[in-house]
């Protein structure tokens, strides 16, 4: 199925939960509202017409100008080879885009739909601060429940890849600011 057809199918099934799409790129994508995302994900995986059985990647974007954070899910539908040595066959692929406001970035987790989402969502939380609700590996932080960090230590402050991230001044007694006094990345 082409991305346009998949979008039409989704629009028929979910109506107003499908927001925006972009096809004239190398990376065709469809927007989905955050509150409907787990149902859409389940549909995309289980429906025989779409059959997206593989989550390739979760990308987090910080769109500072639009005041949104955005998670992109790259989906592939693949078919097992007929004989042992042949490569897996790609049936079709699409990218789903879920945008959330920057001041309350909450997206329901899809780690129970695709197991691959587990670590990807932990990383997206760690570096971008998107809170994936009902993530199987959650912990209670000072600001409520969130996925466990995966790269930074648990007591790290802030989310380093956000564009307004401030560098730490020190970490456990180790000075962290460079001698240029630089405290934020240059973009």
């Amino acid at each position, binding site marked *: 199925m082409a991305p346009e057809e998949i979008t039409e199918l989704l629009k028929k099934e979910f109506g107003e939960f499908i927001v925006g799409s972009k096809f004239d790129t190398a990376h065709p994508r469809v927007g989905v509202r955050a509150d409907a995302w787990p149902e859409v994900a389940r549909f995309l995986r289980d429906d025989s017409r779409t059959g997206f059985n593989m989550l390739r990647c979760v990308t987090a974007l910080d769109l500072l100008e639009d005041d949104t954070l955005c998670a992109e899910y790259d989906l592939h539908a693949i078919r097992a080879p007929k004989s042992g040595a042949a490569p897996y066959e790609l049936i079709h692929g699409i990218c789903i885009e879920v945008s959330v406001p920057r001041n309350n970035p909450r997206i329901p987790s899809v780690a129970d739909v695709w197991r691959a989402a587990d670590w990807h969502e932990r990383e997206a939380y760690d570096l971008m601060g998107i809170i994936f609700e009902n993530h199987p590996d959650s912990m209670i932080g000072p600001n409520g429940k969130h996925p466990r960090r995966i790269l930074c230590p648990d007591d790290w402050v802030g989310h*380093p890849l956000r564009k307004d991230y401030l560098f*730490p001044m020190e*970490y456990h007694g180790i*000075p*962290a600011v460079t001698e240029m006094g*630089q405290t934020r990345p*240059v973009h």
Partner: protein
Amino acid sequence: MSWIENRFEEGLIITSLDWAINWGRRYSIWPMTFGLACCAIEMMAIGASRFDVDRFGAGAFRASPRQADLMIVAGTVTYKMASRVKRLYNQMPEPKYVMAMGACTIGGGPYFKNGYHVVKGVDLVVPVDIYVPGCPPRPETLIEGILRLQDMIKNQSLARDRWQGAKEKVLASTPTYA
């Protein structure tokens, strides 16, 4: 400081004993098997046959800090890793030496400016004896570092604490971890 150091006056016997002990110590520097990033690949290379650091007595890479004399900090030290590096250093028996290998461990290297997670030099965490520059240093450079460390050990004396004078400064500038 080991049990024997700093207990004697300089003298003929001590000087000869120094010579013997330093001779033993400098030709059996056992490094720790401990690599943090890309520099560790070059550290592995010096252990292999082409560069063969065993020629200088430093080829017995120990898997435990308790058997090691030299900690080659080969790679990027992150804040998360810094407490582990410190703990490994504390577990090594005296006399112990630290070599900062590569730009990352000397001063943050490529991550100096935009690396939010990289310690800007491992000397902020543990006291360093030898700095080996490069990104990564070639194995020859690392061997040169080991040779310079041997020179350093050659000039040690039982009558002198290795950290004489510097010790207070070092202790004040290195944080302690539980």
